[in-house]
C-alpha cells in the first residue's frame, strides 16, 4: 500500500501533460457507428488550428527577434527626455515617431519590445533545449534500465518536485548571480523534471514493444537500443514538451527580470519593461500593457504550438482527427 498512491500519482502527473492523448478504449468511441459519409468524415477531422496559429505566433516573434535592429525605429536605450510617457501614436497626444509611445525615460516602447523578444527567445530556446536534454537523458536511462537506476532518478525527481519551482529558481539565482546565462542555467536546473517524469513513463511503455525486444535479442548494445529504438519513439513527446517548456522559460525569465534578477540594466527585457512601467502606472497604462501583451502572446504561441504538435505528432490521434 505504501507505494500505491505514490506510483499512481506518478502516472497522473504524466497524464497531466498528455491528458487528451489518451485513446478511448471502447470501440464505440473509436469508430463512428454510422457509415462514414464524406461529410461526417470532414466534420470529424478538425483542422489543426492550434498548430498553425501557435506556429505562426512563434515564427512571428522569432522574426522580430532576428530582425530587431532593422525593424526597430529607435535604439532601445536612447532616451528622449522631451517625449516622456507619450501615448501610442493613434491616441491623442501620440507621436508618429513612437508608434507605441515611450516610457518614463522617453525610450521607444516598440523598439524595446522588439529587442526584448531577443532575450525572451534566447532564454526560451536554450533553456528548453537544456532542460530537454538533461531531463530526457535521465528519463531514458531510468525507463530503459529500471531497477536501482530508475529508483534513484525517480527519487531525485520527487525530491526536486518538493521545491516550489519559483523558490528554487530564486535560491539558484541568488547563488549563481545575475546574468542571462545564469537565468538559463537556473531554468534548466529547475525544469528538467518536467521532461524527466513524462518521458520516463513513455520510455517504460516503449521498452515493452516487440521491436525493442528484437533488438535486445540481436544483442545490440544498450546505447544503440536507447538511441536507435527508444529515442525515436519518445521524440514526438519530447518535441511537444520542448514547445511547452519554451513558454514556461519565457514566463520565468520575465518574472526574474521583473524582480531585477535576470539581465543587467543596459539590456532590454520584457520583465524589466514591466517593472519600469509599473512605477508610472498611474500616469500611463499603455507602457504596462504592451510588454504584458508581448509575453502573453508569445507564451500563448508556445502553448498552442505544443498542443498542436501533441496531436499532430501522435499517429493514434491523427487517425482519429482529434
Amino acid at each position, binding site marked *: 500500500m505504501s507505494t500505491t*498512491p505514490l506510483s499512481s500519482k506518478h502516472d497522473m502527473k504524466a497524464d*497531466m501533460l498528455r491528458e487528451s492523448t489518451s485513446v478511448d478504449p471502447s470501440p464505440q468511441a473509436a469508430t463512428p457507428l454510422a457509415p462514414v459519409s464524406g461529410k461526417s468524415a470532414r466534420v470529424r477531422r478538425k483542422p489543426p488550428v492550434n498548430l498553425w496559429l501557435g506556429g505562426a505566433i512563434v515564427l512571428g516573434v522569432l522574426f522580430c527577434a532576428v530582425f530587431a535592429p532593422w525593424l526597430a525605429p529607435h535604439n532601445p536605450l536612447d532616451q528622449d527626455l522631451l517625449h516622456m510617457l507619450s501615448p501610442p501614436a493613434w491616441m491623442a497626444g501620440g507621436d508618429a515617431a513612437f508608434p507605441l509611445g515611450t516610457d518614463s525615460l522617453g525610450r521607444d516602447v516598440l523598439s524595446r519590445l522588439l529587442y526584448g523578444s531577443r532575450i525572451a527567445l534566447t532564454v526560451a530556446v536554450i533553456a528548453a533545449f537544456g532542460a530537454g536534454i538533461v531531463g530526457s537523458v535521465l528519463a531514458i536511462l531510468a525507463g530503459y534500465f529500471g531497477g536501482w537506476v530508475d529508483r534513484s532518478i525517480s527519487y531525485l525527481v520527487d*525530491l526536486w518536485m518538493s521545491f516550489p519551482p519559483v523558490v528554487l529558481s530564486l535560491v539558484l539565482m541568488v547563488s549563481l548571480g545575475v546574468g542571462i546565462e545564469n537565468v538559463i542555467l537556473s531554468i534548466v536546473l529547475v525544469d528538467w523534471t518536467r521532461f524527466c517524469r513524462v518521458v520516463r513513463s513513455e520510455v517504460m511503455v516503449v521498452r515493452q514493444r516487440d521491436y525493442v525486444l528484437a533488438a535486445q535479442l540481436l544483442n545490440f548494445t544498450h546505447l544503440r537500443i536507447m538511441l536507435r529504438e527508444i529515442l525515436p519513439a519518445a521524440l514526438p513527446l519530447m518535441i511537444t514538451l520542448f514547445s511547452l517548456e519554451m513558454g514556461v522559460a519565457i514566463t520565468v525569465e520575465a518574472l526574474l527580470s521583473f524582480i531585477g534578477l535576470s539581465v543587467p540594466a543596459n539590456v532590454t527585457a520584457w520583465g524589466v519593461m514591466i517593472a519600469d512601467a509599473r512605477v508610472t502606472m498611474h500616469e500611463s497604462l499603455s507602457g504596462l500593457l504592451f510588454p504584458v501583451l508581448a509575453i502573453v502572446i508569445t507564451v500563448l504561441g508556445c502553448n498552442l504550438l505544443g498542443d498542436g504538435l501533441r496531436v499532430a505528432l501522435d499517429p493514434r490521434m491523427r487517425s482519429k482527427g482529434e
Partner: protein
Amino acid sequence: MLRLISTVLSRRLIAAIPTLLMLSLIVFVVLRLIPADPLAMMLPPNATPADAALLRHQLGLDKPIPSQFLIWIVNALHGNLGASISFQQPVATLIGSTLPATLELCLAALVISLIISVPGGVFAYAVTDRRGELPVSFAVVLMQSVPSFLWALLLIALLGVYLPVLPFSGRVGDGIPMPHLTGFLLIDFLVKGQFSDWLSAASHLVLPSLALAFGFAPLVIRVLRSSLLDQRNESYVGVARLRGVSESRILWRHMLKNAALPALTMIGVQFGFLFGGALLVEMIFSFPGVGNLMVQAVRNNDLVLIQGIAIVFCALMLVINAIVDTLYVIMNPRLRKTA
C-alpha cells in the same frame, strides 16, 4: 475512519522527514556555493581582516560545510533558524509573523480557483466534440498563458487604477490595528466583532487572490476535463443511463466524484505553483506575507533568511502533499482497505 486518517497522515508525515532533510541539505549547499561573500554586507566599510575573521568565527562560517549544516539543523529543530542579516531579527519570528498572511492568501485563491474551475471543467467537458470545443479550449490555453504576476498587474491596472474600485496595497486599510490573534485577519476580525475592519481585510484580499486563482484555475480545468473524458466510457455511466438517470445528474453526481480524484492529486502537486505565484503577487500587492519577505531577502542577499524561507516552503509543500494523500485515501474507497 478517524483512526484511518491519523494513521495515514502520520505515516505520510514521517515519510516526509528524510525528504525535508535532503531538501535542506540541497538549499544549504547551493547557498554556500555563492560567489559573493555574505560577510561583505554585514561589515562596516572600514573593517579590518581581523574583524572579518572574528565575525566569520562568530557565525561559524569558518567551519567545514558539513558541520555548519549539522549546527544549523540542530538549531532549526529547536525553532532557531538563525538571525536575518538585513532585518536584524530572528528568521523564525519574521516567518512566523508573515506566514498566516500567505496561507490566508493561498487558501482564498484555492477556494476561488475551485469555484471557477469545477464548473469550468465540467463545461469544457460538456462542449467536447461540439461546436463550442474550439473556443473553449482556446480560452483555457489563453488563460494558462497568463502567469499570476501578470494577472496581478492587469487586475491592478483594471480594477485599481482605471476603475478604482478595490484596494491593491497591503492587507488592511491604513490605520487599522492588527488584531494579533491567529494572524488570519478574516478570522481575527470576525472573532473580535470588528465587521468594518473585516470588510477592509476581505476587500484587500480580493485582487491578490483573484490573480493567484486565475493563474491556477486553468490547470484544474484541464485536468478535470480530461479525467471526466476518462470516466465517459465507464460502465457505471451506462448503467445509470439505462436506469433513466438524467444526463446532468450522471455528470454532476456520479462522474464528477470519480473525476475529482486526479484533480485532487494535481492540486497537491501544483500547490508549489500557488506558493511560487504568491511570491510575486505578494510583492506586487505589498502584501506582508512570506513571499514578499523572500523577495526582499533575495534583493538584500540575506542568505540566512532565504535559507529559512526556502525550507519553510518545502516543509509546507510536504505537509500539503501528505494531507492530499490522506484525502485521497478517504475519498477513494479502493485504497482504504489496503491502508
